[in-house]
């Protein structure tokens, strides 16, 4: 679909070739590689992969491919871009799939499904995060504040810095501006424009100067 929408860009051809190699669609992968072979900068990458396929048609000795194949979901569902099933399936298949976890939590945060976000925080211990990612800390603080409940993650603590930022955010919004979000916008954007507090309040991100 991406080719149909954006044209035969080398970046897309490369990604589609790779995805099809992982899926075992070697015939389709070869066609994408064949098209990529005609481009200027990725021809060598394509030739190298085509030679690999020639030597090992199922790519059974390629460690990266094998590792990715082990993570392919096996539970069949109707794909909807607006549900979390496929990400949960990926994590069921491999609980160390960090990309799936981060997409899942990001999906919950973006769609304000805070209960589900909190429910899945326990998975943090399946990965090698040091502490808790800042945005997650901000979301946890917000959740605790609005739900009047404490969120515990075994072995992990919310940093003092995040707590202080949240308290300051509240002071500015409710103390200085009396909860008038419109009036507080520019001041909050300047300091907290990259925070989840700000996103939750305004639906915008990346506003910090």
């Amino acid at each position, binding site marked *: *679909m991406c080719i*149909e929408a954006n044209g035969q860009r080398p970046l897309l051809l490369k990604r589609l070739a790779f995805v099809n190699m992982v899926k075992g*669609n070697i*015939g*389709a992968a070869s066609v994408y590689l064949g098209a990529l072979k005609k481009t200027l900068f990725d021809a060598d990458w394509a030739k190298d992969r085509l030679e690999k396929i020639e030597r090992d048609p199922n790519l059974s000795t390629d460690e990266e491919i094998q590792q990715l194949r082990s993570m392919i979901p*096996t*539970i*069949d*569902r109707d794909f909807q871009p607006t549900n979390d099933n496929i990400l949960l399936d990926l994590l069921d298949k491999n609980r160390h799939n960090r990309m799936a976890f981060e997409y899942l939590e990001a999906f919950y945060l973006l769609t304000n499904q805070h209960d589900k976000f909190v429910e899945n925080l326990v998975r943090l211990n399946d990965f090698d995060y040091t502490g808790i990612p800042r945005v997650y800390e901000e979301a946890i603080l917000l959740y605790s504040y609005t739900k009047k409940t404490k969120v515990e993650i075994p072995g992990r603590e919310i940093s003092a810095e995040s707590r202080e930022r949240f308290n300051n955010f509240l002071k500015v919004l409710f103390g200085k501006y009396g909860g008038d979000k419109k009036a507080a916008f520019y001041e909050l954007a300047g300091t907290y424009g990259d925070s989840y507090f700000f996103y939750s309040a305004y639906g915008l991100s990346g506003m910090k100067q």
Partner: protein
Amino acid sequence: MSKKVLIFVSVFFGILPAYGDQICSKNIDKYETIERSARISPDYNSTVIPPNIAPLNFMVKEEGSRYLVKIYSQNGEAFEVFSKSAKIQIPEGKWHKLLEKNKGNELHFDIFVKTNTHGWVRFGTITNKIAGEDIDGYLVYRRMPPFHYPVKSRIGIYQRNLAGFDEKLVLDSRRYNANCVNCHTFCLNQPNKVLMGVRLNNQGAKTLLIEDGVAGKIGAKFGYTTWHPSGKLAVYSINNLPVFFHTAGNDVIDTFDLNSALMYFVTDSKTIKTSPEISRKDRQETWPVWSADGQYLYFCSAPMMRLDQTKAPYEGYNKVKYDLVRISYDLANDKWGKVETVLSAADTGRSIAMPRTSPDGRWLMFCMCDYGYFPPWQKNSDLYLMDLKVAGQTDRYKYRHLEINSDKSEAGHSWSSNSRWVVFSSKRVHDLFTRSYISYVDESGKVYKPIVLPQKDPEFYESCLDAFNTPEFAVGPIAVIGEKLARVMHSDNQISVDTPFTMATPKTEKNQDWQEAQ
């Protein structure tokens, strides 16, 4: 004379090619012999080829620095193709002369490769048989990206001269501002009676009718269509076909039929009709095809499943299996008989789709897949053949699985006008990039190893991001194409038709199966 001088003289007097570049087998006095035949791509080896097909250009998949192929048969002059690369492109004139003189004979390729280690090597001869019967002169197919959904992409209908490599655009969705150009249906493989479905951005779905060099537009949507051999009417399906995607497995895109029925367009009166027998409220009818004599309409039929549309992906969609049925028709009195089962899904265990009768009336080729009506999107779809002559004598519809099937999807087949060739769509080599394959069918119904539709550049398919689908043979080119056809498509003029109902609807439980025409 030194080599340099000779090259100068050659170039100066326009004598090409230069010294040392041309080799013929007579000059190769010393070579090693390898018994096995050389690997070539596409695989044009040990099969039957049409006597009027374009040159079967190929790549030699053997390491070497020079390549020579000697092409010969029983009659006529042998000729040779020399190449500095592994790409073998056969001169059209010599090819056609040789094939024309050798209908029914064997065609041989002797392949010589100059290797770095062993000098010249000769591989075992590749032999194909040249059929006695021609293939239809044209193939009309769609070229499109593998996915047309949800992004509406470019779809083109093309006609290809099978004796050469000339491919002409018939209609293109993007160039001519259409949403989609759909199936094209010929009456008895004749290009002067064609129906073609189009979906227009501003007018909705319409059908183009090309008759004797004149194109018109019918103000109705025709689905899968079949011309009665008389050319007096065409039966078509109306379907409600949602598309969805799987999260697991390689075939990610899928569809099913929520509701369908058959109708027919009468060319003289320009009217659309149906019969209760082919538009039953408790059945889904699709994939109609006429018997060669026009006395029976074959089609696929499944019980109406009340699919739960609240449960993605429509729980139960993969339980729907279609039977093959037929109904008699009396053209003179416009009377339909009773539906009779030819082959039931309960007996085969699989779903039957895309029946196509051979023009001589002898054979019926069809697909079977695990469920549903649309085999191209199912890896397990295979082709089967039924002998209608034997069935007529014994009243038993025996069928067989064809040897030409692969472990990928085979579907979308069409017969040549002489019933000796079938073309079908297969994903056997390039997965989602469907290609058109041609097979010879002998009088006993044996179907021979298929060849992929030949291209001038034998590496063409290796980087072609188009899928080729819905191939249909035609004995000549469609007369109205391109701009001319597009003008008709966008014109305000259309053949207005009254339809018994506009679209199948799933709301059958409310005693209102069909939406009344406005």
